[in-house]
């Protein structure tokens, strides 16, 4: 027998070589999720922490309203479902905004000459060398009523009164958009860079105008990049708490803030926070599963 290929050489010792990755996955992925899962079924202690006693109270509190003293017949509790719904919707709008700006940006970069592309990509990532918290606080200062944006517009007489951007849904979306834009740009860039521009020529040759080419050829071909970008923006936006906390008000409360509150200080309710996390995780998993299913179907065809 010859030297053999690597798969033969390492056959049988595969699990040993995979050990480091299993440790990483175990410690940083499975263990925390498992802990959350277990905590969500425990009884709360009033100053934070848990009592090791099985209870469904956390989930019950999330979905049902049993009155002030817990003795009324259960009614569906809309408060938390509402917060979830608002979060999905905010994250969705932020994703759409990222897509609308990110796609042309990625297209622009991918169609520059190969030498300057890396420079453009570098420029896109520069703001992200600064901590997310600092960027979000800066955004707050920029758009508040006495901030540079309003003062600039006022001094030029473009507006008569401050825009009142802060503490609105729009401000939250702006924050989310700014936080996660590169996650949209990079995968789309990767897809557009691989796009064969002779496909556009072929479409033009077959009597398609510009918009038809975009709709029927370019978008379907770079779709994997677009979907990846949307997931990478939507998922973290859904659980984000910095942007809604700092830029939004009480009315723009999102899941991230709700969960954060349960674990902060003495006022928290750990099992409830864990239950909300598990529900969020489930939603995200569903989104990803639907995507994976679609992808498989496309490949199978």
């Amino acid at each position, binding site marked *: 027998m010859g030297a053999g290929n690597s798969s033969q050489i390492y056959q049988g010792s595969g699990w040993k070589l995979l050990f480091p990755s299993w440790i990483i996955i175990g410690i940083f992925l499975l263990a925390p999720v498992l802990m959350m899962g277990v905590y969500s079924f425990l009884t709360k202690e009033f100053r934070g922490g848990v009592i090791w006693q099985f209870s469904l109270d956390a989930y019950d509190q999330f979905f049902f309203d049993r009155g002030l003293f817990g003795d009324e017949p259960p009614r569906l509790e809309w408060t938390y479902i509402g917060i979830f719904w608002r979060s999905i919707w905010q994250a969705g709008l932020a994703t759409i905004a990222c897509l609308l700006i990110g796609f042309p940006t990625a297209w622009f970069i991918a169609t520059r000459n190969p030498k300057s592309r890396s420079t453009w990509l570098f420029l896109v990532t520069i703001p992200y060398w600064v901590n997310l918290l600092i960027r979000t606080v800066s955004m707050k200062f920029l758009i508040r009523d006495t901030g540079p944006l309003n003062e600039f517009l006022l001094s030029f007489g473009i507006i008569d009164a401050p825009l009142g951007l802060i503490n609105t849904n729009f401000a939250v979306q702006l924050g989310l958009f700014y936080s996660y834009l590169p996650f949209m740009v990079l995968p789309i860039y990767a897809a557009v860079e691989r796009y*064969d521009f*002779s*496909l556009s*020529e*072929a*479409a*033009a*040759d*077959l*009597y*398609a*105008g510009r918009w*038809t080419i975009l709709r*029927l*050829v370019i978008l*379907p*071909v770079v*779709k994997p990049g677009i979907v990846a970008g949307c997931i990478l923006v939507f998922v973290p936006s859904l659980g984000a708490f910095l942007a809604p906390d700092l830029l939004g008000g009480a009315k723009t409360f999102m899941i991230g803030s709700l969960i954060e509150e349960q674990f902060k200080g003495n006022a928290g309710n750990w099992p409830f926070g864990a239950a909300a996390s598990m529900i969020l995780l489930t939603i995200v998993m569903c989104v990803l599963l639907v995507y994976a299913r679609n992808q498989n179907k496309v490949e199978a*065809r």
Partner: protein
Amino acid sequence: MASPEIAVSVDQVVKRYGNVTALNGVSLDIRENEFFTLLGPSGCGKTTLLRAIAGFEDVTEGHIRLKGQDLVDQPPFKRPVNTVFQQYALFPHMSVTENVLFGLLRKSWSRQDAERRAQDVLELVQLSDFADRKPGQLSGGQQQRVALARALAPRPEVLLLDEPLSALDLKLRQAVRMELKAIQRETGIAFIFVTHDQEEALTMSDRIAVMSAGHVQQVGTPKEIYETPVNRFVADFIGETNLLDVQVLSVTGGLAQVLMPGNRNFKCPAAAVVNAGPGHLSVRPERISVCAEAAGDLSATVIDHTYLGTDIQLHVKLVDGEAMSVRLQNAETTLMPETGVVVGLSLEAGAARLLAD
């Protein structure tokens, strides 16, 4: 005004990219229902010209007319010509049928008519069984035929083909040549075919335009291009030839009197632009025969043989040191001179041609 049988008329087209001139005043008439080939080495401007006809390149100067109508200001999607691309450029997310339907639906055919037409063209290229496959599931040859079907479906006035066979392997390429020619006859539209492969050009074309350095060197039938090249470039590019440096004594009525290396006189046809003085005599290796030294137009020393199966190639050296090659048919009766022997070479009357540079 172009006469009615001209499909595409290229009129003094110039294309410059910055300082580089890709097309330098090209004029051509492509007739209806003809298989027309643009042949030349890479960088000669043939692909640029094809892309200018398709509308992917703007021309710097000049006009391109399709059946008398100027195309120059029309965007590609308004020109009634279709292209078969070098790498096919099939839409990877669409099935074979959807690819073929694409152009038809953009030209607002009804769904029903378009589907019938798609079926017909897929039948023409013998791909009916693969209609529902994606391009990624087809072989190179099948993809090439999808590209052809897609371009033919909307009934273009002219079909443009940009080296469509170059991505295929040799065996397939030879089979597809005949098929392509048959399809051209069947559809009855003009094909403008770009290639750098002279064999491809000779076997398929009704007429060939040989291009080099942004100029058209010669336009003619394969026979004209091969047998009566107008200049040294064409003679050298098409097939194999011997180019001898000779002294032209006189030219009268297309016939030249020349002094061969070794100082023998020789009479041969001359290209139109040749004058007295130094010249080049082009003679194909298969148009030379070996004879006794005194009887030949040239005398030469045999250097080597190469066995080619159907032929034997003889490498010889003239008195002035120039190398020549002679092709002898591989037959019982062929006399094969030994290496080192001095022989006479006689050039077939009319087959040797005097050329300008």
